[in-house]
């Protein structure tokens, strides 16, 4: 029987309540903790060979018969008005088949609010001809004064939403009782996602059905966006994404390029590809917005945090959302008195988008650096300070955690932390070495609705079918492992079909560290349904009771010692198939499902030049049961490497007078290379969350990037005594912080440490 339930769903820290129907399946107990036959064993990616050999067809590789290529005219100004737009010369060009302006497509605008806003578009048979034709569009611009300073926007109340206020306890009274109060202003920069496959879509009308091939993190979200914008029934839109070249949060919706391609496909009657160039990608597809964080902490002399306060300004850009920069301050510690005030400044800058733990990466930098400044004032060990302020249950809404092993993470961090005397002793001349740490809190519980089917053929091989997407995180492999475990099959006998909204049931977004915790339980439940049917068939064929039969090692096994190859049982059906179906159950009622961890960084700083090298990062995270330790390790390494880029080299630069984006290309925007990577040590707690689903797995995509910047900056302080206050830690910022530390020491009359 279908069961209707009301449940809470969280994505990227945003909660919604919704009704969902879940299949009334016999409750499936979680597997015991620890590695199993397939789940918990390291598995190379099932789609690794196709990807490595260049055989995987990405959206970038989709070529349909008769396909045209779009090019987009974008605003060169941060704020302007199109006084006149003349498309006639472009229309008359013999190379051009389609031309659209703001009257033809809702994402095109005649009042651009940021450099790169789309204004018009053309389609031609050849991408070069399309780009050349943009010069035939005549625009009369009226350039307007842009608003670029987030503090000024707050003063002028140019905000995306009303300021967000939060308070618990009595913050003012608590600060008055504190033995020590520290305060600081931290700033973080704007960071660009730079997935190597840019945003792109290929759209084609097939009769009255619209096909959308798109590089996306959520094919169902694209379907909904397009259905709403075009007022079409949802099932008249088919969204396809088989292989996908990275997203990191920037590809959660249909995006402008899809609507431009649809409008041009409708106008020309031909399939149209709209693929952004790298430079367009770095203008118009989202970013991790800059923040300003004025934060304050008060503690008793024993290290007990009595009060935390933060004022946060999110420099959101023209469109987007004001993210939870306040989140770590409210959630990480067991502090009774907390007050935050958050502004989402509306600026004439490109829109933001979710970027791998949005808000929490930025907020953790401010909070965890402040905690180390507090530890220094208190002359208390930073790890001890964090242990003393451990939150035993969630103080935001008083709910217990579904599971929390942060103290175990701290315990496992001790040997890495204990190396700091030895690391400091390796300081050599101008190169000073030190160790720093930072804690991590983030979501990652996933939720319903998410569905999967499992099909077992006469040959005893299985296929998982679900219309999810694998954005490169290895979810095909994890889903195959879960189904193989439940069916007692070796991994190579399970295949996964995904990436097509017309060929599989509804599936979760691949964002918010939710793919495995949302989809994994649905796949397990579908596989269990198939397994149950196989046992029922075998019981009838061999005249045994169902309860004595199970599936193991590709065989149906009887408790009395008998066993038969699976294909002998399913082979009775010849070309008939066993179809199992499964749904993701609800999240545990009244519980807070979160991920936790800590990272310990070793750095070396050249105090003469300000050069910084991150030499080692140990990452200990609690994300529940680990499905694939090999893929999990890669996720952690990847998150940390993005974190190192965020900390040391990446920054979108804008001309402060005009709002013109200067860092559009990959020589100007500094991504980490293989030469910038520290030694990374990964340690996952791997204890299933006993309250969360039939798996006990949480998400892993985002937690590893959360504490990296703070751990590195705290290590810099350990090495040099300098308080870095803004990201990225450029040479200028490092030298400024070193000079300030020298001045402070001088004023104190103490011998300068550096």
């Amino acid at each position, binding site marked *: 029987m279908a069961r209707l339930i009301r449940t809470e769903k969280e994505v990227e820290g945003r909660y919604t309540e919704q009704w969902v129907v879940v299949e009334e399946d016999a409750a499936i107990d979680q597997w015991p903790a620890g590695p199993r036959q397939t789940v918990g064993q390291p598995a190379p990616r099932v789609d690794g060979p196709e990807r490595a050999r*260049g055989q995987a067809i990405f959206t970038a590789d989709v070529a349909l018969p008769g396909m045209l290529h779009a090019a987009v005219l974008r605003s060169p100004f941060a704020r302007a008005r199109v006084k006149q737009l003349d498309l006639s010369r472009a229309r008359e060009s013999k190379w051009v088949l389609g031309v659209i302006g703001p009257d033809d497509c809702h994402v095109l605008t005649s009042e651009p609010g940021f450099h790169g806003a789309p204004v018009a578009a053309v389609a031609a048979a050849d991408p070069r001809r399309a780009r050349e034709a943009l010069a035939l569009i005549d625009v009369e611009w009226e350039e307007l004064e842009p608003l670029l300073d987030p503090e000024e926007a707050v003063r002028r109340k140019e905000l995306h939403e009303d300021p967000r206020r939060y308070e618990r306890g009595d913050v003012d009274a608590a600060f008055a009782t504190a033995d020590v109060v520290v305060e600081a202003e931290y700033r973080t920069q704007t960071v660009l996602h730079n997935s*190597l496959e840019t945003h792109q879509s290929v759209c084609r009308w097939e009769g009255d059905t619209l096909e959308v091939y798109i590089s996306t993190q959520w094919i169902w979200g694209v379907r909904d966006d397009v259905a709403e914008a075009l007022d079409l029934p949802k099932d008249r839109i088919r969204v396809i994404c088989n*292989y*996908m*070249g990275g997203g990191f949060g920037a590809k959660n919706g249909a995006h402008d390029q899809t609507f431009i391609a649809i409008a041009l496909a409708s106008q020309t009657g031909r399939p149209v590809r709209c693929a952004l160039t790298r430079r367009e990608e770095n203008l118009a597809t989202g970013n991790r917005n800059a923040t300003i964080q004025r934060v304050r902490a008060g503690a008793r002399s024993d290290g007990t945090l009595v009060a935390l306060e933060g004022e946060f300004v999110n420099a959101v850009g023209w469109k987007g959302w004001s993210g939870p920069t306040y989140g770590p301050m409210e959630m990480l510690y067991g502090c009774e008195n907390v007050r935050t005030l958050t502004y989402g400044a509306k600026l004439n800058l490109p829109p933001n988008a979710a970027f791998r733990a949005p808000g929490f990466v930025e907020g953790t930098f401010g909070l965890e650096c402040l905690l180390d400044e507090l530890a220094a004032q208190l002359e208390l060990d930073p790890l001890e300070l964090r242990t003393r302020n451990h939150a035993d249950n969630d103080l935001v809404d008083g709910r217990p955690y579904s599971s929390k092993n942060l103290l175990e993470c701290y315990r496992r961090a001790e040997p890495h932390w204990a190396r700091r005397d030895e690391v400091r002793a390796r300081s050599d001349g101008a190169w000073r070495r030190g160790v720093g740490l930072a804690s991590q809190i983030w979501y990652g519980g996933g939720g319903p609705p998410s569905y999967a089917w499992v099909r077992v053929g006469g040959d005893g091989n299985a296929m998982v079918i679900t219309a999810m997407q694998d954005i490169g995180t290895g979810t095909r492999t994890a889903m195959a492992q879960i189904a193989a475990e439940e069916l007692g099959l070796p991994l190579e006998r399970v295949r996964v079909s995904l990436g097509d909204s017309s060929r599989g049931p509804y599936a979760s977004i691949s964002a918010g560290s939710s793919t495995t915790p949302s989809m994994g339980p649905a796949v397990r439940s579908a596989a269990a349904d198939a397994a149950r049917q196989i046992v029922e068939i075998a019981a009838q064929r061999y005249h045994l009771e169902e309860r004595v039969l199970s599936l193991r090692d590709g065989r149906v096994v009887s408790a009395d010692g008998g066993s038969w190859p699976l294909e002998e049982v399913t082979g009775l059906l010849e070309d008939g198939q066993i179809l199992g179906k499964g749904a993701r159950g609800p999240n545990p009622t009244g519980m807070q499902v979160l991920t936790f961890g800590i990272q310990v960084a070793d750095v070396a700083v050249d105090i003469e030049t300000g050069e910084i090298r991150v030499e080692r990062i140990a990452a200990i995270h609690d994300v529940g049961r680990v499905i694939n330790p090999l893929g999990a390790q*890669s996720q952690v*390494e990847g998150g940390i490497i993005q974190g190192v880029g965020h900390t040391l080299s990446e920054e979108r630069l804008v001309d402060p007078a005009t709002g013109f984006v200067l860092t559009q290309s*990959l020589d100007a925007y500094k*991504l980490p290379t293989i030469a910038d990577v520290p030694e990374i040590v990964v340690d996952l707690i791997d204890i299933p969350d006993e309250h969360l689903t039939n798996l006990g797995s949480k998400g892993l995509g985002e937690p590893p990037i959360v504490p990296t910047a703070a751990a590195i900056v705290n290590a810099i302080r350990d090495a040099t005594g300098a308080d870095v206050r803004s990201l990225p830690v450029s040479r200028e910022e490092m030298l400024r912080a070193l000079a300030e530390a020298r001045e402070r020491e001088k004023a104190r009359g103490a011998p300068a440490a550096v």
Partner: protein
Amino acid sequence: MALELRINGTSYEIEAPVGQTLAETLRGPLGLTGTKIACGEGHCGACTVQLDGVPVLSCITLVHTVGEREVTTIEGLHDHPLVDAFVRADALQCGFCTPGQIVSAAALVEAEPAPTPERIRHAMAGNLCRCGTYPRIEEAIQTWRD
């Protein structure tokens, strides 16, 4: 303008306008889409192919300048042991940069079958990976003959 290209041991006769890049030629008329274009201006390495064994950026190589040099693309390295090494070491996530990584790595191990970590970091620094598979790539190149 007609020209003849030798790619992965086979000759192709094609028409290409002046100004067309090697990457556009491979991916367009020849359908060899294993070579990826991620920046289109020579900054990221995703489009790396070999010309007579030397890694070059095909997105900034004009096709008419290739001449008689042998082009090796990822399709020509289908059975190279590095493919298996990359998969074993989990040296790919989304996989968009991976063909370029393998083409660069193949040129490296051809010249130096057992490169040091320093040599690997030097030789591979031009191939960006946003997913951050670098530690695994280093491992794959160190274990490719296993």
